[in-house]
């Protein structure tokens, strides 16, 4: 087992932890953190793939690295968006989870 394999297993572990957190934690904020852990695991996997593709005098394959950089920025934008929604939800309704509301009475809305 090489060092890269160990880090690969760490990536899988991060994915599992992230998935668990997303499913099993109630607060939105914790879900968002778990999503970021999951994302970190995925990016780490790209890193492992890049490392395995080292060659031509490069320490790692640059293509997956470029993808990770792109992915990190997108993930940050998604996190920011989710957090703003969380904050707005909290400001308006005081809710900190996305549990389903009890079925609303059929009030007119327009």
């Amino acid at each position, binding site marked *: 087992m090489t060092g890269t394999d160990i880090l690969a297993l760490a990536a899988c572990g991060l994915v599992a932890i992230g998935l668990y957190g997303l499913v099993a934690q109630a607060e939105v904020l914790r879900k968002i953190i778990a999503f970021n852990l999951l994302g970190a695991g995925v990016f780490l996997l790209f890193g492992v793939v890049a490392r395995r593709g080292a060659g031509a005098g490069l320490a790692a394959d640059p293509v997956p690295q470029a993808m990770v950089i792109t992915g990190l920025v997108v993930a940050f934008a998604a996190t920011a968006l989710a957090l703003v929604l969380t904050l707005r939800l909290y400001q308006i309704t005081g809710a900190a989870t996305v549990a389903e509301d009890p079925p609303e009475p059929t009030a*007119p809305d327009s």
Partner: protein
Amino acid sequence: MTATTPEGWLLVLALTLPAGAMLLAFVAGGRHAQRIALGALALWLVIAFAIALQVQRGGAPLAYLIGGWQPPLGMALRADGLSAAMLLTGAVVLLAVALFGRAPYATPRGAQETRAAYAYWCFLPALAASLAAAFLGGDLFNLFVALEMLTFTALALACLDGKPSQFKSELRYLLFALIGSVLYLLGAGLLYGAHGTLDIALLAGRTRADAPTLVAGALMTAGLIAKMALFPLHLWLPPAHAGAPAAASALLSGLVVKGAFVLLLRLWFWVLPAPVVLNGGTLLAALGAAAILIGSVVALRQERLKLLVAYSTVAQMGYLFLMFPLLAAGDAETASRAWLGGVLQAVSHALAKAAMFLGAGLIAASLGHDRVAALGGAARVMPITVIAFAMGGLSLMGLPPSGGFGAKWLLLRASVETGQWWWSLVILSGGLLTGGYVYRIVAAALAPPAPGCEARPVPRAQELCVLALALASILLGLVPLKDLGLVRVGAP
């Protein structure tokens, strides 16, 4: 080897025009944003039409190598029949919805810019750019970025009203969609590790049914169907689509979910090896069948019009999955039929559902509520809307002549031909249930108004947008099969 085809520049234009328009609208704001968006969307329709024409006439996909770099290092945009058909559908629906939105999202001369109008006119071209990226992308990672573009756009459009109740359902949508994207990305990473490329055309020749490919396929598929709200992963769709303003719901239900669908087709019929498709397709179709039956029954029992239409989307998305085992199991002739049937379903549902959501929005705006039981009098105030809604419903039911009929007929025939007749029972009972919920609404709308019911008249221009979309979904059924051969160009 991909090479840039002579008309490949059209693909670049299809992507950059709406993207550029969005950026300009973003900077300019106010009244300019609306003008830029409308102009860009009209032009976009022309481009989409030109692409479809080129693909149809040439009988071969268009391709463009970005920067002249050959995959695997570089990346390509490709337009086969599927891309062209979906692009054209997207352009038609977007333009109709844009025209529909001119009244509610207007910025009068001299008035200050408002939040909703600004966001609306920026996100329409944004959606166009996202769809172009999703339909034309030839690289799995690039498609990931396109998926995220779609997610952000969908989210912002759904929150357009700023209704407090919407934030929770949108947060659920965002979180679920993000898990979907990440699972997709995870699979893409594995595929790159196994094959050293994410170019779809190159992967097509390289994949085998080995462990990395299988795991990647399962993860990416699960991620994509979470974004398509296939049963049992549909929790987010009904509240998100029902709570959004009418114009946004039409785009979400009609177009956004189709982006993930195109990706799923690319994954299953280009990237994954045949035996995997054969084995896994049945599971997808089984989930699709459950979506059709359960979604339709639940729709039948909804008390709110928009929720009913949203559940109808859950059911109609199920039909898209029936093509998977049919395509894998049949001979070339049958497979081609199943392919055409599936894509036609996506297109006709986009048109019909957009019309129905816009219609539902008009009805709700006019009556001040959208309780199905109290729709009486709607047909007197807005006959055109109710007729358009019913026409969309006919197409969903699969009655001739309509695009929905063509789609369901082709799927039906393919299911009989492959000996998998049980899917035809699903298709037919789904049609009956669909008829049930469409009848419920139309009959309620035809009923005399309840005493004390005050319905406001709705703008004729908006009604005509709805009618145009519904007519398009009907007229699709009158297009001769030969002209639908477009969809077969470059099919798997």
